[in-house]
Structures are given as C-alpha cells and as structure tokens.
C-alpha cells in the first residue's frame, strides 16, 4: 500500500513489542499523509542486527492536536506532524484535515 499526500490514514493500534519508532500516543489516532519523506531500511529490524530490507516508505503524517489530547485547549488549527513508516498506517475512509 502506497499513500498519496492528502490520504486519510489511521495509525495501527499495535502493541508490537520491542523497538518501534511509532510513539504510543499516536496509536489508533487518525490523520492524513502530508508528504512522502523517502524509503529507508526498517529500523525495527536494524535494531536487532538484521538488514531491514526491503526498504519501507516513511511519511510525514499530520494530526489535529485536538484529535490527540483530551480537552485540548490550544487553537483549533494546531497540527502535529510526525514521521511514520508505512507499515504502521492503514487507510481510513473518513477523516478531517
């Protein structure tokens, strides 16, 4: 699965153990693909001395701060952008940008 800028995505609510590069507070949260950063060896495998191949797409993913935090009091237009690997994302039909 490859995503395009503007695609609505959800971060997998995975409890995968070991070294992961997806912060806990984003798991299960919805956002959108802002841009493709590139393709890189998978750090979750590099962390254990493996090759990390094939390379995985890394995306800059945007989130509404209000979607991440309970009782968020900042401006409604506040956004958070986080680098997330493709295998941590799933497509989502709806979503708000």
């Amino acid at each position: 699965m490859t995503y395009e800028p503007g695609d609505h995505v959800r971060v997998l609510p995975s409890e995968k153990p070991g070294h992961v590069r997806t912060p806990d507070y984003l798991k299960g949260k919805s956002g959108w693909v802002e841009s493709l950063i590139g393709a890189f060896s998978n750090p979750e495998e590099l962390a254990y001395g493996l090759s990390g191949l094939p390379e995985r797409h890394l995306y800059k993913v945007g989130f509404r701060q209000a979607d991440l935090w309970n009782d968020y009091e900042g401006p409604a237009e506040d956004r958070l952008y986080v680098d997330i690997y493709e295998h941590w994302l799933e497509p989502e039909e709806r979503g708000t940008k």
Partner: protein
Amino acid sequence: MSGVHDMGGSPGGPIDRDQHEVEDWERLADAINSALGARGLQTTDELRRAIESLENYRDLSYYERWTAATERLLVEKNILTREEIDERAAEIERRWSRP
C-alpha cells in the same frame, strides 16, 4: 506502550531546561559510539533498542544510558565479555585511586 522511553504525551511536569558542561567521559562515550558505528560494529537503531531495554533506564543520565547500552551490545555481539570489561574497569579504578 513500547517501553519506558516511550513517555511522549504523558503527564511529566515541568522540563528541566538547565544546560550543563559536557564532561570528558561523556565526550568519550560519544566518540566510542561513533567509532563503533564507523567500524560497522553498531548501528544507531541497535543502540536505541539497547537503551530502551535498560531495566534501570530512569535512574541513568543520558550518556550513562549510552555507555550501559553499548556495554550490553558489545557483550551481545561477542566483541567483549563482561569479565573483560569488568577487569579493565577495575584496572582503571586502581590507576585513578593511586595516591
């Protein structure tokens, strides 16, 4: 939660923004990690994984985590044994404590 390090977004109180001088041993810890990386003996991802798996993570400072994790990786990869590291550390300790 993927580990003790994965604390982003959780209530943490105020952040200590004080700066401190980098100590010599901290520069050395950084240099050793660069050298291990340049030799292909250790990757940043491995170091991160080892740091995250430290049982006493919260008790250690930033570079203490680096050194503890590096020791763990060197033993794990059979580059050094824990006995070799302990012997060398004891030798340095003796040298430093000499009057």
